[in-house]
């Protein structure tokens, strides 16, 4: 019933808050009945793919929830801009954005000791209203045209969903170009420094981390290549990316500690100017890349651990079944 739970969770998200539990309980019973009826017809338990089809036929979660929100508020000017299922979220986000934007505007003006006019507040508020409304209108339009796949979040179903070829191909293209650039930078520093290549040099830190980073990039490309050839090996993606991101996360601290990354070349014609450029490069690498990169890797580790869990659970179940069967066979023999 892992799939059913996932489906009901997705529907629940869009239901009216006060009736969520009640509606979900009733939907659960209805779907159980349908599953039971189908199982009776087939004379066996439903396979995951059959259960998935049954739930897909029932409707995408947003559409199912929308039927319970027919009389709820929506934003309509001639045609529906924001539907009733998105409207509560729209109000929350709009309220949050308005409060933050107006609050920060007031704080900044107080800090700068500038006179704060009503027009400034009105303009700030208007921009927020327009941006948030436009974003939700586009979201509404997309949702209507392309119903949300009900397997979101897909962790529960990850074992059944093949990796889309476009996903592997785009990854291979992007990371191959980046890997090539990374490989060539030590040989052709102008790929990084441009016209300042004569004045700057890569610091030892760059060479220290060259191979670990190249290996991580190669591992990412290898995973995508394998999944392009074997899309059904869906466990490879989360597990390999979990490992890659965990290793990358581990590298962050020594990389930050290895500052600086760019030095002034011995043969620099204008040393003072070259130092300024080197400082700019070092600052960009440290504050523009490394300082937030660890957050990216940390989030990626958490996400891919979440995606890897169902694969691990399924593997343990299979292993458990295999052991039990072996014990039964041994018992018979």
């Amino acid at each position, binding site marked *: 019933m892992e799939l059913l739970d996932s489906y009901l969770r997705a529907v629940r998200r869009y239901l009216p808050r006060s009736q969520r539990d009640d509606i979900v309980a009733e939907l659960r*019973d209805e779907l159980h009945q349908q599953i039971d009826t189908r199982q009776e017809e087939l004379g066996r338990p439903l396979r995951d793919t059959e259960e998935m089809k049954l739930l897909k036929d029932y409707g995408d979660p947003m559409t199912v929830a929308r*039927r319970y929100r027919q009389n709820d508020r929506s934003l309509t000017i001639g045609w529906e801009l924001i539907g009733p299922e998105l409207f509560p979220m729209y109000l929350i986000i709009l309220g949050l954005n308005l409060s933050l934007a107006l609050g920060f505007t007031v704080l900044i003006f107080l800090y700068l000791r500038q006179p704060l006019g009503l027009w400034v507040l009105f303009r700030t508020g208007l921009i927020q209203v327009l941006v948030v409304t436009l974003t939700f209108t586009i979201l509404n339009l997309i949702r209507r045209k392309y119903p949300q796949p009900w397997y979101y979040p897909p962790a529960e179903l990850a074992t059944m969903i093949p990796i889309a070829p476009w996903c592997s191909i785009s990854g291979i293209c992007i990371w191959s170009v980046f890997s090539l650039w990374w490989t060539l930078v030590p040989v052709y520093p102008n790929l990084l420094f441009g016209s300042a290549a004569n004045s700057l040099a890569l610091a030892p830190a760059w060479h220290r981390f060259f191979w670990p980073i190249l290996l991580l990039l190669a591992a990412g490309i290898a995973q995508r290549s394998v999944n392009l050839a074997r899309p059904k090996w869906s466990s490879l993606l989360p597990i390999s990316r979990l490992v890659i991101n965990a290793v990358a996360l581990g590298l962050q601290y020594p990389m930050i500690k290895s500052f600086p990354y760019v030095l002034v070349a011995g043969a620099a014609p204008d040393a003072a100017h070259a130092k300024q450029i080197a400082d700019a490069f070092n600052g960009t690498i440290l504050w523009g890349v490394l300082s937030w990169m660890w957050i990216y890797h940390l989030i990626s580790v958490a996400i891919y651990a979440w995606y890897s869990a169902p694969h691990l659970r399924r593997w343990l179940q299979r292993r458990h079944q295999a052991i039990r069967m072996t014990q039964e066979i041994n018992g018979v023999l």
Partner: protein
Amino acid sequence: MRHTVYLVHYMSNGTQNGAEVFENLRLELRRGCLTLAVLTQLRTERYGYTLRKALADDGLEIDEGTLYPLLRRLESQGLLVSQWREEDKRNKRFYRLSEMGTTVLQQLLYEWGRINSSLERILQEA
């Protein structure tokens, strides 16, 4: 040549609109009938699945996505009462007509009969 293109375009649009209009009118007609059918069936207590089966057995197919929100609306209007109870080791929500629902159903059935006989007379005249 240009005239032909316009004509074909007009005809294809006209046909599509006709189908759409019919579908909208059919749904409108069905909506009222479904409410009446559901209220009539719920003179006996039932839960969603058995109600849907009973309606389908009588030739009135209704999908779950329509039935459950309809049941909720009727309940919020005070025409139905519901109760959660365990049956076959599962919690089910049983619906039945409320007192007010019984009165409204009688009025609706009377109205239905009146419309039906008027319509039959009109059709015979036609």
